């Protein structure tokens, strides 16, 4: 089994997790045999297509059809990230797409009876659509959209910030197909006093309390009405995988990916800032005024994160490359800037003492990541680090050190770097 657990401070964990896997599968087998012994009596009462939970494959790589090198941070709820070199594709394939969950993935999806309701204080007439109606009534659009977890890079904060300790791989740019949220909202009618939209979905709270939502976030009405904000039903040209929100996902590129709600069945047009689960407290919010590392911030001094900051990642080569002296080092990667564009790209081989500019392509559409590449000459034998730095269209660059500390460790857009040896 290749289950990997984040090994930040304890190498032992890796071995232990493998042992633990074996142990769990063994206990599972025993349980299954035991459970089946009693189940058989009621066998004829079970629906024909019923698969007992015990038979569902607990291997996340098979279950979610993701690459076995993806890193599992948490298995309840499931949270899995990519490594930098796995994000080399211009369009992130399903197998390298990070998995972020706040609750339990829905256990039954009834496509025939799935519906989306538009309601809220600021809807003119509440309406409900079946999936077929959504797909036939509204025009279809496809965009490549950048989705980055607000907590991507959290693992670097000091003092440590609370939550899953994402390193660099909670980011993706897949191709999303669906209808414009704007078209659907306008079909139901938006009152003049509309401020925000909030989504509701069918995932379960970790406590399995049906009265609680694991997450219900949203965006200001202006973001909801953008051309690129989709109610998507396809990812990379096929039905969205269950773990990424099948059958319907809200996709709002360039903002913390938590606003791109999965398994959506209701969107409320609100006359105030949406107050759903994970909209308040320290969730997806930053101190409105900068604070010292570790400082306490009262809830009322926290502000909701909107556009993500400028950032980039070197996806080729994988960190740790050794090459002979005289050979040029080719690097490439992606850069993005939330609602803005990346205007310039630089790299440094001397820890920021000098920076060299390199070409960065225009985005294929607004809110898609942009690709950069460079051929680098490294002057002599030895150890180097290549640091990459993107600058957005307003002239704001990535910091080399960690940006402002915050209680949940959001928005770490410090420069990415890789290690290189010339031999």
């Amino acid at each position, binding site marked *: 089994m290749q289950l990997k657990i*984040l090994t930040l401070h304890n190498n032992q964990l890796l071995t232990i997790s493998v042992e633990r896997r074996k142990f769990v599968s063994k206990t599972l087998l025993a349980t299954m045999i035991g459970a089946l012994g009693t189940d058989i009596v009621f066998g004829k009462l079970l629906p024909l297509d019923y698969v007992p939970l015990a038979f569902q494959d607990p291997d996340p790589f098979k279950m979610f059809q993701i690459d076995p090198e993806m890193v599992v941070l948490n298995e309840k709820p499931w949270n899995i990230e990519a490594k930098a070199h796995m994000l080399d594709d211009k369009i992130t394939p399903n197998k390298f797409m990070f998995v972020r969950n706040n609750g339990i993935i829905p256990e039954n999806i009834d496509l025939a009876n799935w519906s989306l309701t538009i309601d809220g204080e600021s809807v003119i007439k509440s309406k409900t659509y079946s999936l077929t109606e959504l797909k036939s009534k509204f025009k279809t659009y496809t965009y490549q959209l950048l989705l980055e977890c607000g907590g991507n890079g959290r693992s670097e904060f000091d003092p440590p910030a609370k939550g899953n300790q994402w390193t660099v791989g909670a980011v993706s740019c897949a191709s999303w197909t669906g209808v414009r949220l704007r078209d659907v909202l306008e079909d139901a009618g938006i009152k003049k006093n509309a401020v925000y939209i909030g989504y509701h979905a069918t995932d379960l709270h970790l406590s399995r309390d049906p009265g609680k939502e694991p997450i219900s976030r949203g965006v200001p009405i202006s973001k909801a009405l953008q051309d690129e904000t989709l109610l998507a039903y396809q990812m990379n040209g096929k039905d969205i995988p269950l773990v990424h929100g099948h059958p319907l996902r809200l996709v709002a590129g360039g903002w913390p990916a938590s606003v791109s709600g999965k398994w959506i069945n209701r969107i409320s047009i609100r006359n105030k800032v949406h107050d759903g689960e994970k909209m308040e407290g320290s969730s997806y919010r930053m101190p409105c005024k900068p604070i010292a590392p570790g400082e306490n911030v009262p809830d009322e001094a926290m502000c909701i994160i909107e556009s993500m900051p400028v950032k980039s990642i070197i996806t080729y080569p994988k960190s740790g490359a*050794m090459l002979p002296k005289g050979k040029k080092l080719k690097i490439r990667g992606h850069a993005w800037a939330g609602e803005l564009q990346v205007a310039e790209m630089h790299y440094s081989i001397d820890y920021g003492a000098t920076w060299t500019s390199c070409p960065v392509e225009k985005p294929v559409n607004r809110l898609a990541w942009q690709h950069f590449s460079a051929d680098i000459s490294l002057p002599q034998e030895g150890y180097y680090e290549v640091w990459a730095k993107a600058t957005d269209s307003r002239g704001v660059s990535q910091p080399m050190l960690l940006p402002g500390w915050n209680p949940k460790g959001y928005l770490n857009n410090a420069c990415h770097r890789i290690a290189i040896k010339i031999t």
Partner: protein
Amino acid sequence: MKEPTYWKRSRGAYRILIIISALMVIISVAALFFFTDDTGTEEDNTPSNKEYTTIPTTNDDPNTIIDGIHVRTGLVEAEGLMAVVTNCTTCHSAQLVIQNRMDRDRWIATIRWMQKTQNLWGLGDNEAVIVNYLVTNYPPINKGRRQALSQVEWYELKE
């Protein structure tokens, strides 16, 4: 209409029953094989002992500890372990605990947040035990403004 469905479903059940029986037979044969092998002569025992250690032993104890780690959860064995396993890993995995490094005040604040919003129950006397376990075994580590690159896996770059 009813009868064929019933028959179809029972057929499914029988099929599972046959598979289970087959599994049982295989397991019994395997058990017999290992059992008889175990009763070999003394001179056989020495070399085969080495092999035995690589065969996973059946273990139904959910609280097995190996090398100071609680195998089922990955948590460190220390005072308060079972209070943490019982109260903290019902809703979320222990990986969420192990990843996080906090001081006493922030662990308590996290517990309060879970009680207020996430249906965590009152912990009573266990709260002190749990918080002690967490701050003792998973204390914050100083990382500074930026850590050095570590755990680099070196390889020859082709192409």
